[in-house]
């Protein structure tokens, strides 16, 4: 039950042992399923092929299977963590990149980049998407702060409406410039296109997730409101806007490389905090591992359900995440907070 254990404490508290056990269990399952996922696909690769250094199979393994797994782990963990941070900072359990206009703004940015900056590098396109995501999130924050009654339901509703308006703009542009198919790829996440050389931007997201952990205590304090945070010497506005900017940037990079992953940032943090509480230093690592696990399982389903064809992971996540989210909503514990 304790967050910050003593450096030289005489004995670890039982809560800490439970936390470690939980994290360990999650890591072990993630590793097992990760290893399994490497051997799922149209081309039949098994361990002996790798040991025999079968060159064509080895190539497929290194060029496609491993990058795909890395992309899944990096984006899944990051989107889980980002949802957790947004929920804490906005103090609303329904706020996530997909319910704050962030993801829609990022895909609008991509449309704009593709139309008017067609020749630029992927890195520059990503930068444009990040800028749009930051602007969209800032707009959401401004709207929320102007609300007279920041009701728990009204806040994400505003975000969803804002997202809808931004998406309409993106669709309009995409329609005029014949980009509808690209737009639907950006809004619906898919790992099938991930190859070596096309996912490395996600390491940025991994670095940002680690950075988020270093600020976890400040995020928790900001989540207790401005008065408590200021009292404890935290620069509230810097933490609030810094955290939201981090969340927007991570979401935008994931949209650029993978596409939107619905419900992930909503469902995973809520499941974890329901079990472990709102102390981010404690729950952030478990959220990261659970987010990765969730996406990995959904990706395996998307690869196997219509084998040898694939369906986009975003579709599977949407169905599974939506079902979990409904179940969460109907549980009284969620409503009781």
């Amino acid at each position, binding site marked *: 039950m304790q967050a910050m254990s003593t450096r030289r404490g005489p004995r670890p508290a039982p809560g800490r042992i439970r936390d470690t056990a939980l994290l360990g269990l999650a890591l072990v399952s993630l590793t097992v399923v990760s290893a399994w996922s490497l051997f799922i696909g149209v081309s039949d690769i098994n361990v002996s092929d790798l040991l025999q250094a079968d060159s064509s199979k080895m190539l497929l393994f290194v060029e496609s299977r491993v990058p795909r797994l890395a992309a899944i782990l990096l984006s899944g963990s990051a989107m889980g963590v980002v949802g957790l941070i947004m929920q804490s900072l906005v103090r609303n359990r329904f706020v996530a990149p997909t319910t704050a206009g962030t993801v829609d703004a990022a895909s609008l940015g991509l449309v704009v980049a593709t139309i008017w900056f067609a020749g630029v590098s992927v890195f520059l396109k990503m930068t444009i998407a990040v800028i749009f995501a930051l602007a969209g999130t800032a707009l959401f924050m401004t709207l929320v702060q102007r609300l007279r009654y920041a009701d728990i339901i009204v806040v994400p509703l505003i975000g969803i409406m804002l997202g809808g308006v931004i998406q309409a703009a993106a669709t309009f542009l995409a329609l005029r410039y014949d980009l509808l198919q690209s737009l639907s790829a950006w809004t619906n996440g898919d790992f099938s296109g991930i190859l070596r050389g096309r996912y490395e931007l996600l390491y940025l997201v991994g670095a940002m997730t680690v950075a988020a952990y270093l600020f976890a205590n400040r995020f928790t304090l900001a989540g207790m409101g401005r008065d408590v945070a200021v*009292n404890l010497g935290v620069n509230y506005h810097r933490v609030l806007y810094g955290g939201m900017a981090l969340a927007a940037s991570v979401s935008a990079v994931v949209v650029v490389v993978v596409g939107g992953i619905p419900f992930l940032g909503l469902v995973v943090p809520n499941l974890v905090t329901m079990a472990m509480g709102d102390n981010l230093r404690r729950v952030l690592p478990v959220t990261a591992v659970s987010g990765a696990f969730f996406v990995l399982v959904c990706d395996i389903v998307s690869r196997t359900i219509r084998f040898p064809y694939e369906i986009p992971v975003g579709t599977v996540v949407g169905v599974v995440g939506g079902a979990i989210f409904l179940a969460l909503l109907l549980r009284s514990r969620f409503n009781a907070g």
Partner: protein
Amino acid sequence: MIELSGVTKRYGPNTVVNSVSLTIPGGGVNALVGPNGAGKSTLLSMIGRLLPLDEGEIRVDGLDVSRTAGNVLAKKLSILRQENQVAVRLTVKELVEFGRFPHSQGRLTAEDSRHVEEAIEFLELTELSGRPINRLSGGQRQRAFIAMVLCQDTDYVLLDEPLNNLDMRHASQTMGVIRRLATELNKTIVIVLHDVNFASYHADRVVAMKDGAIVADGAPGEIITGPSLTEIYDLEVPVHSYADRPVAAYFAIGSRPVPNRNANHRPPTKAVLATDH
């Protein structure tokens, strides 16, 4: 020492705190009393740098609160507002541990843990230390937040109506603890109180505010008198004596307005007139 000079706060055309000057030397329980809207909470929030000042200056041990870095002030003074976030699912112990944040930035040393243990013990929360704060009663939660502030280990502790919504038992217990913070741990307490009788029994000094200004300032025996309370609250309150302290029997009267009084006329009947220091 807390020094206020010419402190003013305005909201649009309304001046909520009007050029208040006040000196609070270290030690003791200093109660801020007065009617609703007198500016007590606003003044307290400004001392605790939760609200910016429009005019004037506030110094705490010589540090200007509007200019000193937040984490420096966080080791000097702590402030607890009325509305505390309860939707956050932290255990009592986690909450109290966050009180050490200004000292340790979250990496608790053995000394930090000692403070945490002591604060939890001081507020008799040992049995509740593993319980999430959103599942505590109002009184227990108030004690948990006071433990957090105690753990912060500041010389000055500012409390905004900590007895709000507490029943008789919890209110008296909490006030007893606050008194002990001053007596046993030599903290300087500045506390906004609604009930003048708590001020009468537990405060060393009572500062009364009305319409954004200090209208009376002195020992409880000087302020909690019939004429003085009439002046502060526009209400004739019978004051009795119990255990050598004045007790205002305000609950016995209805809402009788004071006869023959107009707003601009203030007879000099109060105990100590407010003065600009």
